Structure formats: C-alpha cells, structure tokens
C-alpha cells in the first residue's frame, strides 16, 4: 500500500499505540495536519509550542507511556526545545516531531528554517533528520524504541515538508535491530553477590532512591527491600512517590531542601544503596564531605551515571526493578538494624520538618498540607519551579509513584501548568493540582485557553507571595536582602481565569483555605486559586550551595 510521508507518520504513531498528541500547526507541517484532520488520534492544541512539549512530558510522567509533541519548523521547533531539554534532564520518554523546510532548501536560510537536529543534539537522547521517505517508518519505530528503553529520553524526528508529501510503500518493521544500541537490563551476577554481602554485613544501611525507581516501575521491590532490611529510605526530588511518605521507614527527601533527618542519616549510614539516583549536586552538597563513612552500592541503568560524581564501591548496571528483585531473592542474612533505626528516629524527633504558624498571613506550607488532606494524598501534583516546588515536595504525602510531576534536572519555570494538562489527559479520573508560584504560573498562563477549550479540568494553586520567591530567598540569605528584580506583579488571577472561561477564587485568610480547595475540587472546570501567602516565607531547611549536606540552615529555633 502506497502512503505519503504524512500518512506514514500517523499510521506509525497509531501502531506505536499513541492515543494523544500535543501540537501546533505551521507552514512546514501542513501535510501532516491535513492527515491529522482525518485521524482518530486525540489532538490537543496548546497555545504555545513549549506547552506542547511540557504537556507531552507530563503525560509521559503520569502514564509511563511515550509522550508525543509536534511543531512546525524554525520557531515552532525552537519553542519546543525548553520542553525537550526538560524531558532529557529527567529521562522522560518523549518523541518530538518537527516539520522542516523542503529538502532542497535546507541550508539556504529559508523562511522559518533552523538547524533543528543541530540545536537539539545535546538535549535529545537521539535525533533524526529524515532524508528519504522510505526510511520514515523505520525511523519512527526506532525513535519510540530509543525513547522508551534503557535510560529513557526524548527523541526528535525532523521531517522536511516534501518528505511528508512523497509516497512510498508502507512497510512497518516488526522489530527494531540496532547493533549500536543495546541497553543492559540484568545486573552482573558477581556484582549483585558483592552487593548482597555488603548489605548483609552492614549495620547502618540506607536506601537512597531516585527517578530511576519510578521509571523502572520498581516501587514494590523497593518497599520489599526496605522492609526486609529494616533500612530507612530517603529519596531525591525525582524519586518522590517511589516509596510511601507515610511509611515508618520513610525519611523524606534529602539534599538542599531535604529533611534535616534525611541529611543527617545519610551522613551516618555505613552502606548507601543508591537506586536509580545520580548523586546530583543538589543532593550531595559538598562532594568531599558527603557520607564519608559509607560504602556505596549504586544501581543504575546508565553506566555513565556511575562514579560520575562520587566513588562507588559496588556498581551494578541494569534495570532497577530486575536488580532489586534479584537482590531480594539472594539476601539470606539481614542486617541487625534496630539500633540504627532508633538513632534515625531520634534524628526525626530532634530535627522535625516544621514551619512557623505565627503571623497573620497564610503559610504556603499550610496550603500544601490542606491540599494533601483534602485530596486524601491521592491527587497527582505537578509543580512549577522554586519555593512552590520545594513546599510541594516537603508537605504533601506522596504514597504512589507517578503522582509528583516536577521539573527536576532542568528546573523549568512554567512547566507545571502545561504538564498538569498532559497529566489530566493521561489520567482523567485523577484530581490534578498544579502547585504554582505567582511568577512561574505567568510563564505559561496562556494554557488556560487550552484547558477550558478541551475541558481539561486541572486545579492551579498559586502560592502568591508577590516575589520570585526562591531567588528572593537567596538574595535575603546571601545578598544582604538586595531584592534585585525579584519583586514581581501579576494580573488579577481571578479575573484572568474568568476571562478565559475558567473559575478563579481568591483566598486571603487561613480559614478560607480548606473551603476553597474543596470548592475547587467540586467544580468541573479549571480553577485558579489565588492564595495570598506570607510574602517573605523561606524554604527550610536549606543547605547553602557548596556546603556539606548536614550543615543546614534550620530557619527556626
């Protein structure tokens, strides 16, 4: 059967099981959009290409499936790049499709031309410029395979508009065979044995889990391992949801804004079992002071993540779920940890996570706590970046994987709202909250139109403090309160939401917080809640940049 490039694209997406795409039309994708007109794949039109990429990313994080976004050449493609880089840093499976100028115009500085494969090379796991329509089906097949296997990541396919029109026989490759790409899924038996011995002989073991646990679907195995060893568990921002926050072995998040007891505990551990985490600088603080007494077992699917930042005693390359499963079978002798758990509990009592409840203003932490209670901890939370993100990480009790959706590695303001759209499209039965700041919500606020138009019912809790709060906090603590351009104004969020056809609620008093959340949840529409919160509230604890992670600023007496 002869099909055009555009038809091949849509047929291939269908065969890959794509149920929704987020995209924006333009001159060099007209042939594709003409076929989308007849396609039964759901299509969401955001109001900015960046939002298309974030929505695809959010969809992927919440569902575990590959997110798909689409944009035209030149500016359409460059607008995607922040979203692509965001997915790349957090290893999110995504396929981005861009139109390109006609093959014979490439390199001619044609209208809306940009070297998109060149621009996205360092922010994609792989990318393709399609030069022959006969290669298109294979390329799409490979792109989905690469995006979703090994350490996942975004893959971009750049398709010149003439290729979209050319016809060829459609041959769908049944399997993918790439000699140069063969991810390792099973851990080396010798290494697993070494790790098991080290764990059995440990006295103060600690699990440090990251986004790899979520990506690999290993939450059950982690819980089993922690309970079997009776070892405390701490997690990175990306690892939130990988272990229930309500569990007695849970230490919460570690690192720059982690709990003090997690940071102290990891410094005291004798064996750290790092699982799908990468010892990021926000986690380790000053490297040479990080967990000096600990032997480190590092399980990761990406060999390049191992021994990149800290020296690892037992590296195990492979899929976290497989390897932890294998370890569970092999561990016969469990360490005696009752003394260690007592010490950890003492740390929890000595350094609880807390905030001052004094003052007339609403505390942002309180808002997050109330969202947690009102949703029974069962909502999917997305965040923007900054204080809102850290409070959302600290004060909501996540008990399932894929319920905390946040820009970890890249730290992209403007991520949370479009990501929430993608989450809601992927998980229509879940309550979806974007915990936002008044700064970051303004970076993709145009998506109100998309939400209303497509009846994507998300709730946005704006922790409105009139500042770019996290930067202001750094200015307060390290730049003598010289608030250089961090005082920011915004629109009347209530009226703005209403003008888009959404619902706006303003909350200025503490007693209005819970009712406003309940009301928002009861409304079958997108709701902006403008919480007027304490303007100069800080996120604590805080490890100053470059300090050892047990040298925290506590904030409160």
């Amino acid at each position, binding site marked *: 059967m002869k099909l055009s490039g555009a038809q091949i694209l849509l047929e291939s997406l269908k065969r890959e099981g794509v149920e929704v795409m987020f995209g924006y039309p333009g001159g060099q994708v007209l042939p594709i959009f003409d076929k989308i007109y007849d396609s039964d794949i759901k299509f969401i039109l955001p109001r900015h290409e960046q939002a298309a990429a974030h929505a695809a990313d959010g969809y992927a994080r919440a569902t575990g499936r590959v997110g798909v976004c689409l944009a035209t050449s030149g500016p359409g493609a460059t607008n995607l790049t922040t979203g692509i880089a965001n997915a790349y840093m957090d290893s999110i499976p995504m396929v981005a499709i861009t139109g390109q100028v006609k093959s014979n115009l490439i390199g001619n500085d044609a209208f809306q031309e940009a070297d998109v494969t060149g621009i996205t090379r*360092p922010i994609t796991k792989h990318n393709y410029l399609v030069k022959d329509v006969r290669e298109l089906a294979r390329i799409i097949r490979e792109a989905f395979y690469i995006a979703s296997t090994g350490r996942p990541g975004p893959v971009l396919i750049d398709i010149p508009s003439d290729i979209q029109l050319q016809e060829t026989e459609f041959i769908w490759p049944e399997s993918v065979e*790439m000699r140069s790409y063969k991810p390792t899924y099973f851990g080396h038996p010798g290494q697993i044995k070494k790790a098991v011995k080290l764990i059995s002989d440990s006295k103060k073991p600690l699990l440090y889990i990251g986004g790899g646990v979520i990506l690999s679907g290993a939450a059950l195995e982690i819980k089993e391992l922690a309970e079997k060893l009776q070892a405390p568990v701490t997690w990175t921002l990306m690892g939130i949801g990988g272990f229930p926050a309500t569990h007695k072995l849970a230490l919460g998040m570690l690192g720059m804004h982690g709990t003090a007891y997690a940071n102290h505990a990891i410094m005291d551990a004798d064996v750290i079992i790092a699982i799908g985490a990468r010892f990021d600088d926000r986690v380790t603080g000053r490297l040479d002071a990080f967990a000096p007494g600990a032997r480190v077992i590092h399980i990761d699917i990406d060999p*390049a993540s191992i021994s*990149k930042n800290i020296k690892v005693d037992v590296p195990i390359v492979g899929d976290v779920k497989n390897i932890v499963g294998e370890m569970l079978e092999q561990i016969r002798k469990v360490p005696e940890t009752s003394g260690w758990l007592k010490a950890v509990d003492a740390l929890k009592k000595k350094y609880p996570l807390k905030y001052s409840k004094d003052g007339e203003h609403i505390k942002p932490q309180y808002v997050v706590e109330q969202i947690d209670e009102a949703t029974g901890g069962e909502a999917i939370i997305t965040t923007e970046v900054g204080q809102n993100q850290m409070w959302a990480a600290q004060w909501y009790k996540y008990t399932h994987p894929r319920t905390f959706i946040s820009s970890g590695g890249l730290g992209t303001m403007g991520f949370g709202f479009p990501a929430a759209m993608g989450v809601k499209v992927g998980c229509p039965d879940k309550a979806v909250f974007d915990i936002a700041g008044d700064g970051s919500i303004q970076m993709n606020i145009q998506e109100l139109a998309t939400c209303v138009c497509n009846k994507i019912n998300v709730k946005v809790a704006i922790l409105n403090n009139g500042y770019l709060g996290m930067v202001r906090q750094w200015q307060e603590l390290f730049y003598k309160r010289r608030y250089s351009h961090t005082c920011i104004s915004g629109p009347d969020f209530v009226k703005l939401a209403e003008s888009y056809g959404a619902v706006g609620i303003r909350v200025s008093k503490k007693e209005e917080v819970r009712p406003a959340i309940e009301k928002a949840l009861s409304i079958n529409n997108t709701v902006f809640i403008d919480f007027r919160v304490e303007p100069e509230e800080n996120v604590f604890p805080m490890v100053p940049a470059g300090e050892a992670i047990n040298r925290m600023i506590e904030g409160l007496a």
Partner: protein
Amino acid sequence: MTRHTLSVLVENKFGVLARIAGLFSARGYNIASLAVSETMDPAISCMTIVVEVAEEKILEQIKKQLNKLIDVVTVTDFTKKEHVNRELLLVKINYSSKDKARLESLLNKYLGKVVQRKDDTAIVEVVGEQQQIKQLLDALNGFGIKELVRTGKIAMA
C-alpha cells in the same frame, strides 16, 4: 595531563562527527587529534581520537558518554593495550640540490621520502609514531619548514 588513544567505531551517517565533537565540547573534554575514515564495512567508520585528560575519572566518563551515543558501535581504549600507532606527516621545506646528502641521510633514518620537488622546495612524507615525527621535525627545522600537515594518530591492536 595525559594522552589516551581511543578507537571508536561509529555508524557511517551524516551528523555523527558533530555528535562526537559536540559531546567533547559540551562536557569540556579536549581532543588532541582526530582521524576518521571508512572501514572494510562501508556502513561503519573508524574514528581514532586522542584525548587529553587530567584524571582517570574523566577518561572513564568520556568512554561511557561515547558509548551512550546511539551511533557509536564500540569504543576501544588503547591506553593499557599493546598496539601499533602511526601518523602521516607531509612537510614542505626549503631545499636546493646542495642539501641532497644531508636530507637523504635524515630521511634514511626516519624512513621518509621526498614526494615532490618544485623550485626551491621539497615536500617530504613520513609515517611514524608521534615521537619519531617530532624528532624528524626538529631535524628538518634546520632546512626551514614552510608548511606542514599531519593526519593525527591512527592505531590498531
């Protein structure tokens, strides 16, 4: 800084060199020399990359990051391997017939030869290890070097 020779087999596709070069520049690694050519299998190219690193850890990262590139088939590190390595040098020197004996004895020693003579210059070709080439260049300085070009190292175990 120490030098290490890596032999990298890659898919022979457009853009692969840019991926490799981009990886080095994005992560701040130094390429000392680079030689690229097709192999027996026209679908695969061989890149011999000489890298300069300050510590072993960086060399490990370079190898791992290279391996992560989808188009990279294999990475071989010759650092601790017995191997043969060669570089080709073309050098244009000032030359007149009175220099003949002096040049010939030099070229005999380094297995070089004159591949072109024009007016008062000669182009000398020599293949050897980098150390030998350096020594020859030092010696040829006496004639006056007008121009030189080197291929960069290639290696085989």
